[in-house]
């Protein structure tokens, strides 16, 4: 999916602004996790606000993780049916993916982490190699004039970029618990932002340089169409499957994280010791949700680019800021009494 399409040919600028905008949000996430090390957001909520209110807020995040996972899953289904298998019912590629995700989540965060490392080693070189190979197709004029429509669309698009994809990392606060030291909690988010932001920036720039503004905003999956144009000496061509691989490999991690976040939330609200037996039912529920959530492909894009930002901003910025204030106060109170929680 193209990001920051509202800004047109300035989408790349919007991404830069979006990255800057997401820095404070990521700081909040890191701070929260470092204040209560060894606890995920659900446990922090209970520690800060008590059982009833804490669980109430937990419900919000449970829903957010569940919903986001379904949206990504649906997105994947749309991608497959739109670009390559139009006759196949959308449910089948989605079913296959959610089953693999459930498998990964059952095996736990370690396995997913290792897979993340491995897949990054495969996907990043693939993506950047494609971007490099497309250089002959670039035309710098496609970006000019910069800021032709003024600053406002760029800021709007930056806001949209903030909520999708950068601040979606709020999901990690639900699943990551075991850090080696307190500094690492920040490192995870900022290193992630650096790698992810750079990748998004480069792919968007490449897409804009190859396709131009109108195509970039009119296509559902611009990266796919951009890579389609790639043809080096009639030999290196028809490699658009690379975008499919990237979509699948990265989507797998994203859905798995959401699924794990949702399962952990459910487990924590019901005081369950182990979340694992929840994984498959939760995954299948996600599949249903993904099936029901949109009526059509058009609706998906309308929703993703107009409604999602405002909806997600609540979970990504407002609620975390509120929780952080509560957490800081609680921490001071405890420290003031001379008590130490965890360490």
């Amino acid at each position, binding site marked *: 999916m193209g990001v920051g399409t509202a800004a*047109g040919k300035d989408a790349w600028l919007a991404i830069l602004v979006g990255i800057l905008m997401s820095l404070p949000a990521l700081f909040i996430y890191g701070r929260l996790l470092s204040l209560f090390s060894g606890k995920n957001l659900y446990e922090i909520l209970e520690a800060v606000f008590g059982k009833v209110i804490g669980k109430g807020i937990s419900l919000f995040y449970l829903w957010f993780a569940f919903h986001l996972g379904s949206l990504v899953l649906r997105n994947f289904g*749309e991608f497959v*049916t*739109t*670009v390559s298998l*139009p*006759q196949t019912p959308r449910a089948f590629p989605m079913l296959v993916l959610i089953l693999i995700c459930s498998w990964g989540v059952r095996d736990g965060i370690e396995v997913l982490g290792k897979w993340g490392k491995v897949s990054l080693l495969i996907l990043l070189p693939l993506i950047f190699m494609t971007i490099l190979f497309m250089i002959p197709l670039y035309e710098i004029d496609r970006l000019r004039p910069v800021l032709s429509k003024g600053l406002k669309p760029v800021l709007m698009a930056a806001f949209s970029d903030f909520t999708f994809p950068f601040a979606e990392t709020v999901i990690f606060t639900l699943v990551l618990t075991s850090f080696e030291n307190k500094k690492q909690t920040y490192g995870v988010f900022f290193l992630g932002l650096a790698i992810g932001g750079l990748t998004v920036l480069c792919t968007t720039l490449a897409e804009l340089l190859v396709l131009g*503004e*109108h195509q970039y*905003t*009119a*296509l*559902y*999956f611009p990266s*796919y*169409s951009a890579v389609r144009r790639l043809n080096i000496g009639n030999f290196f061509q028809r490699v658009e499957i690379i975008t499919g691989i990237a979509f699948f490999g990265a989507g797998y991690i994203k859905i798995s994280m959401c699924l794990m976040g949702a399962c952990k939330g459910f487990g924590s609200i019901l005081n369950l010791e182990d979340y694992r037996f929840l994984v498959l039912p939760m995954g299948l529920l996600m599949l249903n949700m993904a099936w029901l959530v949109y*009526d*059509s*492909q*058009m*609706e998906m*894009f*309308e929703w993703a680019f107009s409604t999602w930002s405002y909806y997600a901003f609540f979970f990504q910025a407002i609620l975390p800021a509120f929780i952080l204030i509560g957490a800081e106060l609680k921490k001071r109170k405890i420290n003031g009494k001379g008590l130490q929680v965890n360490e």
Partner: protein
Amino acid sequence: MKWKGMLSLLIIAILSLTGCWNYKDVNQMIIVSGAAIDSAKGKPGYHITAEVVRPTEEVGLKGEIYESDGQTIFEAIRDLIIEASKKPSWAHSKVLLIGEEAAKKGTTPFLDMMYRDAEVRRDMWLFIAEEETAGEVLQTDVGKIGQVRSYYIEDIIKAEDSVTRFHGVRLWEYIKYQYAEGVSPTMPLIRVVPVGKGKMYQVAGTAVFKDDKLVGKLNERETRSYAWIIDEIGGGLINVDTNIDGEFAEIALEIFNSSSKMEPFYQDGKLSMRITVEEIIVNIAEIDGHTDVIDKMNRGELEKDAADLVRQDIKDVVKKVQKEYGSDIFGFGRAVKRHMPDIWKEIREDWDKIFPIMDVEVDVKVKIRGSALHNKPLKAGGGI
């Protein structure tokens, strides 16, 4: 010990020396790939045109045409041997073309043999030839691609799902509908059309039967509506003219899925039929214009336009069949029999009178699922 030796010798002999009674090697056979049946000219009986494939050492098969007359079909088929030198095998025949003349007199006399015979396969495809004779169609020279014309015709019919301009019918289906109560059979039409310098086959439209007699024809568009009613739409497309904010555009919608059902009901004491086409799922495949039909509001408009179009088409074809042919090819009677068995018992005798005056209510829903790769129409004249 002696009998043991004898027995083993016997077993070895039985296993190694016997064969099938009527065994024939493939190079001793000739195979009928397809046939055409016409009424014989100027005399009672039938005229058969058979396309025969002779296995050769050369690469590629080539069809040969043989013709013969007979009082009965069986006689005509047997007389083919005189011309073709060997007894043709009918086990691999794929298509059967029927002349209009013969079909108007009734299909039972000649389809009986085809259906009864052990060698002929019941999954043969049936066609009505829209030319002077059916044999003519089979003899048309369609150039290189149609080396075995019957197989070529079979390939056309197999692509039905993506065109829906005809509805393929196999021999067993035809016979089944002929037997069934409250439903009449149909066949697709085949004709020869000029293409460039040569000629080509075209399968399109539907022949309507009443009992076993040909009574009329439906064109391509009516055929699509017919397929909608009997729930046999596999794909194809709908062309819709839209008028959004005074801008006209022709939109092609690709059909992915649709299902329909029919239900009889009473309205003011009159037996009526409700046809519901539930959610034709389509993609916007082509926008011939600059109107943004993908926009939320316009999409609804387009869905409504498409549904209206399909509903009107269905109403038209039902009316035409009711008024002009009076043949229940849609299976309304069968629906009544299934849903209201008691009432069917009372009216089955008069069904031919009831069917033409039945009221029909049509409900159609169209849902646009996507718009392929683009979310906007193509622009001409710059803009932005």
